[in-house]
């Protein structure tokens, strides 16, 4: 599996994503600069966490308009797998590649802590190596992770099995509707999630619950 990580000027989890990808795919990902207009030939693109262009405007709003995102969007429509983590999820919603928005956390504060998640769907390239209903722990680190959409959209997401990760009951860190932590696109090739699977791929960091996500991708896309 060949992968790429998009680097916006204030991406700050680009290295973490690259380390996890190299560790679990055996290949260094290509690092793609936001000004570039074309992605290299890859099977997976990761939009990493961080603050893109500072996010002084709505998080991800400017990044969604960057030159590289045009190509990401075009290729995603043709089936390219895209993983947006944290700020990457915000960029995906701003780019219209995923429905809904990520609002300010309900408590109006940045929050960084491990959260318990339930894996709701294993019918995806991102989660096939998890068990359905498996409880995992990933850290979150964001100020704007409060997933919101209208009721009809939420019902559709649920009905189509596109809610992939849900915060465990009582462990919703940001007020997200229906405890939603991560969702798939209609074609199931784009995943956006607020928690950081790339920070739990190394036992020394307190867990390896993120590894199956990357192992799933390797199995599905190789």
């Amino acid at each position, binding site marked *: 599996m060949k992968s790429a990580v998009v680097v916006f*000027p*204030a*991406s*700050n*989890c680009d*290295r*973490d994503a690259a*380390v*996890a990808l190299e560790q679990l795919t055996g290949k260094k990902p290509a690092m793609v600069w936001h000004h570039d207009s074309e992605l290299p030939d890859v099977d997976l693109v990761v939009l990493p*966490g*961080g*603050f893109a*262009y*500072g*996010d*002084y405007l709505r998080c991800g709003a400017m990044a969604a308009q960057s030159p590289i995102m045009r190509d990401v969007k075009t290729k995603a429509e043709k089936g390219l797998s895209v993983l947006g983590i944290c700020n990457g999820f915000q960029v995906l919603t701003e780019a219209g590649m995923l429905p809904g928005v990520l609002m300010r956390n309900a408590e109006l*504060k*940045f*929050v*960084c*802590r491990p959260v318990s998640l339930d894996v709701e769907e294993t019918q995806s390239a991102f989660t096939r190596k998890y068990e359905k209903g498996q409880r995992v722990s990933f*850290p979150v*680190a964001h*100020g704007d992770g409060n997933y919101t959409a209208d009721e009809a959209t939420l019902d559709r997401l649920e009905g189509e099995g596109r809610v992939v990760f849900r915060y465990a009951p009582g462990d919703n860190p940001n007020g997200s509707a229906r405890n939603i932590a991560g969702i798939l696109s209609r074609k199931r090739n784009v995943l956006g999630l607020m928690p*950081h699977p*790339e*920070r739990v791929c*190394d036992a*020394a*960091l*307190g867990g390896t619950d993120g590894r199956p996500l990357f192992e799933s991708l390797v199995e599905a896309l190789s």
Partner: protein
Amino acid sequence: MTEITPQLVREHGLSPAEYARIVELLGRAPNFVELGIFSVMWSEHCSYKSTRAHLRRLPTRAPWVLQGPGENAGVIDIGDGDVAVFKMESHNHPSFIEPYQGAATGVGGIMRDVFTMGARPVAMMNALRFGAPEHEKMRHLVSGVVAGIGGYGNCMGVPTVGGEVNFHPSYNGNILVNAMCVGLARADRIFKSAAKGAGNPVVYIGSKTGRDGIHGATMASAEFSEDSQEKRPTVQVGDPFTEKLLLEACLELMATDAIVAIQDMGAAGLTSSSAEMASKGGSGIVLDLDRVPQREEKMTAYEMLLSESQERMLAVLKPGREAEAERIFKKWELDFAVIGTTTDTSRFVVRHEGKTVADIPVHALSEEAPVYQRPFEKRAAIAEEPAFDRTKPLIESLVKLIGSPDLCSRRWIWEQYDWSVMADTVQAPGGDAAVVRVHGTNKALAITTDVTPRYCRADPFEGAKQAVAEAWRNLTAAGARPLAITDNLNFGNPEKPDIMGEIASCIDGIAEVCRALDFPVVSGNCSLYNETNGEAILPTPAIGAVGLIVDVRRMATPALKRESDAIILIGETKGHLGQSLYLREIEGKENGGAPVVDLAAERRHGDFVRGLIESGKLDTVHDVSDGGLLVALTEMAMGGGMGARIARGDSADAIPFCFGEDQGRYLFALPATEADRVLREAARAGIPAILLGQTGGDRIAIAGVGEVSIDALKRAHEAWFPGYMSNAELPPTN
């Protein structure tokens, strides 16, 4: 031309004698621009004029110290060609006036100090002191400071991994925000600030210059009064996005060999950075202000020279390398301008609109800056034995203490900091030291900040000793070899002999521990005039320390890990209650003497504990500090979600035994089968060690006294901070 009147001189914070000296050095009266330049360069903040004579007593050398004080940050060797670069710095005055931006720009400033040296910042710590919780401004200050630190550090993608927080009424009008940054670099890629050679281009990089922060350094060199809120416009506004670009662009430029010298523009901005670089390089400098990127129109030379706009750097390049550097900064969409050149005249010359607006010998701004031997009086240390009620119920006191403002969980704070970004944080906030792996290796840095200001008030010498010793102990408890410290000396007005006495004694205390434990000072910062309406803060010499864990698979954490482990206490327990949190929180008294640190014992005990960790026999250790033995044990139990049963020891007096703050002690837990051998080893080494009890169950139980569930302790521990921050009504503090 503005006339230089005695009134104007006074407004610039210069004394008549200092002004006379300026006239003597120049051979004429300064003009208005020059007066502004002298006022910042000779300010306490930039010149260290009150402390310089005393700071010389601090030990700064060791074989592993590659750069001691005098550069933007200290540098220590951590093996394999890797170095750690670190410094702690205060942003106290601005944070009191405008907490979010004051704290945020404090974080930005200390990060620049570290990446100026060529290092990538990998960890942030902060030492915060707030006033009494019930003070009307305090919630606003706590929430603003914490949000500001998080807002800046989180965007930078540098984990904020720990720190310390105290509340005390002496900080009501002068909170302290001390931020520490630790970076990693290669030993052969360190950058310094000496602008050597003539004819080299001087380049300006980063943000544009605006009218913000003018005279920030002068503000930081005076006391506050009722009208200090009027100084709000002197506080700078941070832009972490630009700083992130500046970090990446500087590191990219540093990968070339185009740089002769580089320095961040911090306090006193363009003036201080250029004058210091010229001074260190033994060169002169000519600046052309018309080329400085400006955010506002019609800025005067005075404003540009004294602006403290953030996220700016000054570099001296090798001739002919400008285009290469410019390409990098354009890529990162930052301003880049050649604004001057180095000369061989040893003069600091500034041109604006075709005219020379300042022409000063460089040495007049640096070496000739005043150094004062201010009169000082050393106060006698308080040595009284405090009285206390021996009948107070011990378990109730424990629950109160663990939920008190100075001992309760800091989760409300550190959950607002991204402590796990960079994916190398192997010990998160909440332990004795934070531990951050050296990326791509099995080595790690242990980092801590420590000081107990109430000890320093009772006994400045012993209190400062304790601060350094506790930092050493915290690193040791994680299994690290302590290497070096950075000191952030926060005091009141040095023109008062008793404050100057506190400063002198604290420096002596720090120096004594540095020598005894081979733990030199490699960088630091002084923040004086922390007074409002004549009331000084507690003497607060905050110590930031860094140690090396050779193999991160052999480190220790405080959390209890296994049932039926033996719990062993290292060090002597006399039951010292003077200045203890027990006295303050339970008896409502702040009296008695500070505990004394026996440095020979400190070293013996620490080396013994570290040896056990490094040998792989020990993974559960906590130092015993604030709150004493029972608080330390409770923290270990809460961390592991596991109880412990202990005997009261052979002391007849349970309260001093459980809550005394005697120094040089560690608690640890290890499999019971190892206990006898370890106790025998300790005895052979002449180290006091007692078997205190064993782990297990869901409660802390003290034989013959009582017990309390871990759940109840956790509830008390976690409740105070969120309750305080969310409630209009204060939860009771005792």
